[in-house]
């Protein structure tokens, strides 16, 4: 699963939805892979407004990527800052989590990631 997906996913347990701690999920024992994709600045500029920047910063740090600036860059910043553009491209578009776990910060439930697919099916006592 692409790292970008972590920006859209939260804990599947109903009671966790309202808690701030359930997002973003925390990667654990993550094995990463990198796809080679041509950089597309316009796509990144269109994607950024829908990214939760604070959550992306957390994910980036937890996966061992360089710390992102505190504020999301504007389209102009992105066009002029090639290093940041490359960094975001690599993190959001190219990096995949292949194996590991995603942990909810509220209930502590661990979702397994196998063969690049995260499993959000809950055991019956949590449904």
């Amino acid at each position: 699963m692409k790292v970008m997906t972590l920006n859209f996913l939260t804990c599947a347990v109903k009671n966790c939805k309202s808690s701030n701690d359930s997002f973003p999920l925390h990667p654990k024992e993550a094995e990463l892979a990198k796809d080679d994709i041509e950089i597309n600045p316009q796509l990144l500029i269109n994607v950024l407004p829908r990214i939760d920047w604070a959550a992306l910063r957390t994910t980036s740090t937890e996966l061992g990527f360089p710390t992102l600036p505190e504020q999301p860059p504007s389209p102009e910043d992105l066009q002029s800052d090639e290093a940041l553009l490359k960094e975001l491209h690599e993190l959001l578009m190219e990096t995949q989590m292949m194996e590991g776990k995603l942990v909810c910060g509220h209930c502590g439930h661990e979702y397994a990631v196998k063969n690049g697919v995260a499993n959000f099916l809950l055991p019956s006592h949590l449904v």
Partner: protein
Amino acid sequence: MSTYATHPCEAPVTFLCGHIFHKRRAYHGPTMQVPSVPSSLSGAVPPWSNNAPVPCKLCRENKLWEYDWRRRVWMKKDNVCNGNNHPKTHHPTAIMLPTPDTSHVPYQRVYEPAEDSFLLLDTLSSPSETAFLSSRFASPSPSSPSPAPLVLEVGPGSGVVIAFLTAHASTIFGGPHVLTTAIDVSPFACAATNLTVSKAVSENTSTSGFWTSATQGDLVSPFRPGSVDVLVFNPPYVPTPDLPAPPPTGLQELKDKTTFEEDSHLLELTYAGGRDGMETTDRLIEALPGVLSERGVAYILLCAQNKPEEVKGRIRAMGGEGKWKAETVGTSGKQAGWEKLQIVRVWR
């Protein structure tokens, strides 16, 4: 001899063997009788064409357009149709967005694209829907980017629909800056979908959106509130006495060998809809206000036995009069005055 309950939309079928795959085909009669043209497409011209029907020069019948059901393309012949004793000198031209390749999908445990899947492709690429989607999601100009929409297919199976939407994002959504994703309870469907989409994207790089990856889960349960802009759902819509149980732990991971019972269970999950065939669809509709963004749109496929008019009425009544709209935007021909299958668009 065992007799299966048949899909009430279809003619009764009796089978000697108990193979669930046949049972599934029995529910969906038309997929057994390939080549079968969805009846809405058996007209003289493609539904999206503004051309008046052009008769064949020899027999005067409106047969110059023909729908290739398997490849999902319209074929146009120059002057004469394929009638008896007609000269075969004309090469037909294929016109339409190609169907993604799903030849790698293990159909013994993943739903094979059928009339319902193709109705979704046709509806979502029809002029009226592409116009609707483009006006809602395309960036007005490069200098004022609109946030890239997130397109989610729930229960993609083979992945044919979401691969089609990803590969032809420019045509359908008015621009390639679209994120796509999918969620399915079956690990085999997730793997198949990832592969189908990658293949389709590699063949259509210039028009493709950005595929993020398939996730395993129940309906929209792990998606953040308000995160989905376009949701597409081809539900398990066949009325059955009971809903199948969710996949047990042993069926939540990819494995090389599955038993016949496990395959049957996975296929049952693709079609069995419980009471009125609506038990799963109703749960999804209930989740829509939470998961759809303000500009969000959902496309839901229904069959006649789902009582589509009542379903639309229930959606329109959600959250008070006038808040939600529900309209039929695509149908597969009529049978005894009923639309067999239809696509309902739901939006605020």
